[in-house]
């Protein structure tokens, strides 16, 4: 090994170490932002030391430069322009394109090698692995994006014989994968790519929108593994380390996330199968039931003369961009001596930690944010639980009805407050698509309308009280 090559190998090692340190820092609140920067430095080193290793054709140089010149602005604009509320689908997109790139790297390498000689099994195996996993991640992330962006129905999509169809699809992929390793035929490679894309779609369709963060995390781990497979294909240790780190930590993170929702991963993945579809009939019955609707003035007065108010923010608050209005109402109440806290469900918003980011954006004092375990006992002593655009995270069905899709999910005990105020646009069910008994509880007052408008009206009413 020449000194130059040795130097490059050591720099790759440095990049890998920086990825590890970056990840470590990312998992502690204090160092998170620095951790991201450390990982960026690692990435710049990894890409930079690759350049002298390339002996590209003229067209190769042009394509690489052009590709980076096109991809970089798309990434930056996408990341900067996206609304904070749309963050989860943005992460899904970035993950999906990475999966696509991982599948293509193996595809091209196999095509190149078969042009000259029959590839060894030690090449064929990781190629097949990366092509399948990468393509599943690409297509699956696409469906996750479509569901979160509400381009398609967020509820689980199931049909008769779905499990059988998916099983056949998976079996066909295994057969083609074995054939490809043995024959290295480009036609089989194409077939394998297409079937894997189909599997990615089929695999995410039956998963409900509320579970999507867990799926995105899982697909993130998939892409990591596909990248590690590519590392074996093109014999690049930095790909192996980078990809494997994400594959392993992503798998663990997926488990932590489903734990935070009180669900097993198997339940998230396969929970929709065989579930009784109780759509129109149940909803129709619900519509007919009476609810108590209040005016902003009444509720404002109620809040103004309370001792303790707990705000339960949900995705609806974020969509209405009502974080600032909520904070203003909270400061008005505090000036009157009312204690105000925010109860943050682990999966409030669309992802764990999402709501914290949104409220941080509105400068809500960190001291007022309470995690679920910290505040759940306090609802008993609260005068008002003000539920703003949340639904599933306070649905008592999670405690009491074993048949419910969210049964077992830990919820906020908003139903234990003296009065529950629900701010919603309509009686429409939450993201999980299920009815909420708490809406019909005699202690519940509904305040219909856009969350932001309602909060502004409430603030005016508090001032007047």
């Amino acid at each position, binding site marked *: 090994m020449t000194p130059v090559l040795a130097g490059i190998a050591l720099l790759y090692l440095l990049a890998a170490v920086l990825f590890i340190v*970056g990840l470590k820092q990312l998992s502690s609140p204090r160092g998170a932002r620095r951790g991201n920067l450390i990982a960026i430095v690692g990435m710049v080193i990894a890409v930079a030391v690759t350049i002298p290793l390339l002996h590209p054709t003229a067209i190769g140089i042009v394509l690489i430069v052009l590709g980076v010149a096109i*991809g970089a602005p798309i*990434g930056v604009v996408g990341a900067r322009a996206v609304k904070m509320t749309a963050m989860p689908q943005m*992460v899904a997109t970035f993950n999906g394109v990475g999966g696509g790139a991982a599948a293509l*790297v193996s595809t091209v390498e196999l095509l190149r090698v078969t042009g000259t000689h029959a590839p060894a099994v030690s090449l064929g195996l990781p190629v097949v692995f990366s092509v399948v996993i990468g393509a599943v991640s690409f297509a699956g992330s696409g469906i996750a994006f479509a569901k979160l962006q509400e381009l398609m129905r967020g509820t689980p999509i199931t049909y008769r014989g779905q499990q059988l169809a998916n099983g056949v699809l998976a079996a066909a992929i295994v057969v083609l994968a074995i054939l490809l390793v043995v024959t290295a035929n480009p036609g089989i490679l194409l077939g394998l790519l297409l079937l894997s894309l189909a599997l990615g779609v089929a695999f995410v369709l039956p998963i409900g929108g509320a579970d999507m963060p867990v799926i995105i995390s899982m697909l993130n781990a998939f*892409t990591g593994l596909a990248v590690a497979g590519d590392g074996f294909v093109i014999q690049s240790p930095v790909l192996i380390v980078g990809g494997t780190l994400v594959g392993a930590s992503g798998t663990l993170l997926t488990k932590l996330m489903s734990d935070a929702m009180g669900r097993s991963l198997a339940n998230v993945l396969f929970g929709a199968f065989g579930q009784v579809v109780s759509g129109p009939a149940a909803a129709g019955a619900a519509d007919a039931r009476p609810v108590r609707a209040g005016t902003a003035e009444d509720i404002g007065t109620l809040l103004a003369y309370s001792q303790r108010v707990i705000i339960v923010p949900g995705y609806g608050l974020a969509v209405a961009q009502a974080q600032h209005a909520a904070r203003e109402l909270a400061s008005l109440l505090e000036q009157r001596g009312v204690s105000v806290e925010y109860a943050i469900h682990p999966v409030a918003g669309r992802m764990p930690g999402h709501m914290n980011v949104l409220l941080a954006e509105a400068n809500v004092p960190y001291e007022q944010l309470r995690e679920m375990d910290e505040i759940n006992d306090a609802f008993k002593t609260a005068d008002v639980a003000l539920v703003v655009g949340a639904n599933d995270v306070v649905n008592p069905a999670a405690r009491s009805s074993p048949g419910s899709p969210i049964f077992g999910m830990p919820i906020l005990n908003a139903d234990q407050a003296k009065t529950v105020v629900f701010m919603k646009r309509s009686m429409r069910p939450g993201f999980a698509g299920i009815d909420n008994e708490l809406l019909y509880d005699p202690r519940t007052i509904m305040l219909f309308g856009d969350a932001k408008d309602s909060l502004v009206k409430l603030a005016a009413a508090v001032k007047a009280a």
Partner: protein
Amino acid sequence: MTPTLLSEISVFVLAVFVGFEVISKVPTILHTPLMSGSNAIHGVILVGAMVITASATGPVQDGLGFIAVVLATINVVGGFAVTDRMLEMFKSRQPGGRGPGAPS
């Protein structure tokens, strides 16, 4: 089995353990940024995309390699940018250096 493959497998197995170990204790609040940050790290596939595009033979491989470079660049650049944007939200409000996940 070649010595190269053997060392690659060793690296792989050790990286699995490091990956598990490195995030074993992470507060819920950081789940989203952590997912997003690790998402950016697998953008290292850009290195692979560059390598295969440089050595591609023929228009099909050139075209696929080019697409791989574009996709990988979006992954790595967008991934880091969006993670930084998320974490930026926590930055301004740490009186006395207390992080957002520290108990109050």
